């Protein structure tokens, strides 16, 4: 592993020197810009409310009334309680609520959509990185060096994941800057209030955004690994890209259809959305975070082992 760094440099060079890397960057920045402009000009920005404390107090009264009237439904009650607690906290600590879009809201809103785009990009990158060596025949020169095939495959996989990290950082910076330009950098200091078990506390937006990024990346991580598996197995970039993106897109629909079956919980895509445990309800009642992590780990190990076996064992004929 002494020259693993050199292998990473090589793979990075092959990722970023391709013209597709520039196209991907432009598409990503374009989508962020488009999202920003659409949000900015489609919705009305609400007027500033000088008596916001009264408004919030009024709101809480209403919420309390409603809560009494619908008693019984635990989930709805819980969400009312949360809202009331946050409003009280704002009045108490003199934290004016920001209406409409703000810098941080924008950063948070763009996350899930853009991470889907980054998933597609990374699937393309990892599939191309593995399969194009076979398409062009460069695999013959690559594998006749004093480097084990395992190291080559690992360097390709790691460099693709580093590409994801680079994309996430770009996304964060670009959406932060655009959010600031469109909605004012004043929003940067906005308080981020969270509610947990009856208490309200202030948290950092940066940490929360990255937490959001990471949760969204679970699916990305699994699909990129899946794409690497298909590319190593069939040595065909188009197949790996197509199959992975199709599976990723179709998964949520299929999972909704299968929701009533007991065994759906063992399907990969029932477990990739971990936000079902942090906010919202799990797909099936018996599912827990630990269960999902176990299922993900099992799939991951299978993907890695099968992909590795195909890449390292098969003869190079092409």
């Amino acid at each position: 592993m002494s020259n693993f760094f050199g292998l990473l440099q090589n793979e990075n060079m092959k990722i970023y020197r391709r013209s597709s890397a520039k196209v991907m960057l432009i598409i990503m920045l374009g989508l962020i810009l488009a999202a920003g402009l659409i949000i900015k000009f489609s919705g009305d920005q609400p007027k500033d409310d000088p008596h916001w404390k009264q408004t919030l107090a009024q709101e809480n009264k209403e919420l309390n009334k409603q809560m009494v009237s619908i008693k019984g439904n635990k989930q709805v009650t819980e969400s009312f309680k949360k809202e009331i607690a946050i409003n009280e906290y704002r009045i108490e600590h003199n934290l004016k609520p920001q209406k409409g879009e703000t810098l941080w809201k924008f950063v948070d809103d763009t996350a899930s959509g853009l991470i889907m785009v980054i998933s597609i990009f990374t699937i393309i990158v990892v599939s191309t990185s593995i399969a194009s060596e076979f398409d062009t025949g460069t695999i013959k020169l690559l594998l006749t060096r004093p480097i084990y095939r395992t190291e080559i495959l690992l360097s390709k996989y790691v460099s693709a994941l580093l590409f994801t990290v680079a994309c996430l950082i770009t996304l964060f910076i670009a959406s932060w800057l655009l959010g600031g330009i469109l909605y004012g950098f004043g929003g940067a200091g906005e308080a981020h209030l969270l509610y947990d078990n009856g208490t309200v506390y202030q948290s950092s937006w940066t940490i929360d955004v990255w937490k959001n990024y990471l949760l969204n990346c679970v699916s990305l991580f699994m699909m990129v690994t899946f794409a690497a598996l298909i590319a190593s197995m069939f040595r065909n970039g188009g197949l790996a890209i197509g199959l992975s993106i199709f599976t990723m897109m179709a998964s949520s629909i299929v999972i909704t259809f299968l929701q009533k079956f007991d065994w759906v919980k063992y399907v990969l895509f029932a477990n990739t959305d971990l936000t079902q445990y942090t906010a919202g309800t799990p797909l099936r009642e018996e599912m827990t975070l630990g269960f999902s992590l176990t299922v993900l780990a099992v799939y991951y190990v299978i993907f890695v082992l099968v992909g590795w076996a195909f890449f390292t064992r098969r003869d190079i004929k092409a």
Partner: protein
Amino acid sequence: MSNNAEANKPSVRLEHVSKRIGGKTIIDDLSFDIYSGEVFGFLGPNGAGKTTTIRMIVGLMRMSQGNIYIQGHSIKGEFKKAIRQVGAIVENPEMYKFLTGYQNLLHYARMIPGISKDRIMEVVKLVELQDRIHEKVKRYSLGMRQRLGVAQALLHHPSVLILDEPTNGLDPQGIHDLRNYMHKLSREENVSVIVSSHLLTEMQLMCDRIGILQKGKLIGVETVSEFIEKGAAKVRMQVDDARLAAQIVKDKLSIDAAAPDETTIEVPVDHDKIPVVIDTLVISKIKIYSVITVAKSLEDRFLEVTGGKSVE
């Protein structure tokens, strides 16, 4: 070269190498040695197993049986040590077209410890690409790509150079250059070169020894000169009446002579029997204007050895 090479330890040794794919035997019990400083040619019709053998030597394919040693290191057991000694061009010189020539070389240099930027520029100079090394490979001609291919194979001072069909698609100048590099490396740096090709005349010019492969079996390893001399020579004569002359040769000496046109006959005959043929014709009043001995080409010999199978 092969004379003093016999004294050396073999730089590449194949021991009972077999390859079976799906119950079919592609390579059958291949054993031979290649020595330092010699150019060894693999010859055989398409599908005879040349490429498979070369791919097993460089570790791209696994063998089903046997072992291959490069400078004493098994390609199976000590892959890194064995392959460190090898520079290879397997079929066309495939490079990353979206990178420059220099970036391609840098890419391969990073995979082997101890290759400096100076060494990269040294091989660039050797293959005379210094003017265009910073251009993207997609703008290179095939000859330039081939030279870049040679450069990447030489970066790490290999002691064994393996070229699979190296002249594919090269123009005469490119073939000439490649031949020169190979001879230079084998003569001056004592590198063993293994070449496979179906271009027989090329092989004749390039190789010291030739191994003929047919249906996955090695049916002979000989030096090029031995190989050609073993076959009978041919004599071409300008005469006044070719048809009559051919008839006489057939009747009196029982040799089947060909008469490609009215004044030329070609007589396949051993060197020491040539005067007998001339005597016979002169006695029969055939007028002879010229006699040329035509050495059998590698191609003729090859067809003879492989039983007349086309080489394509």
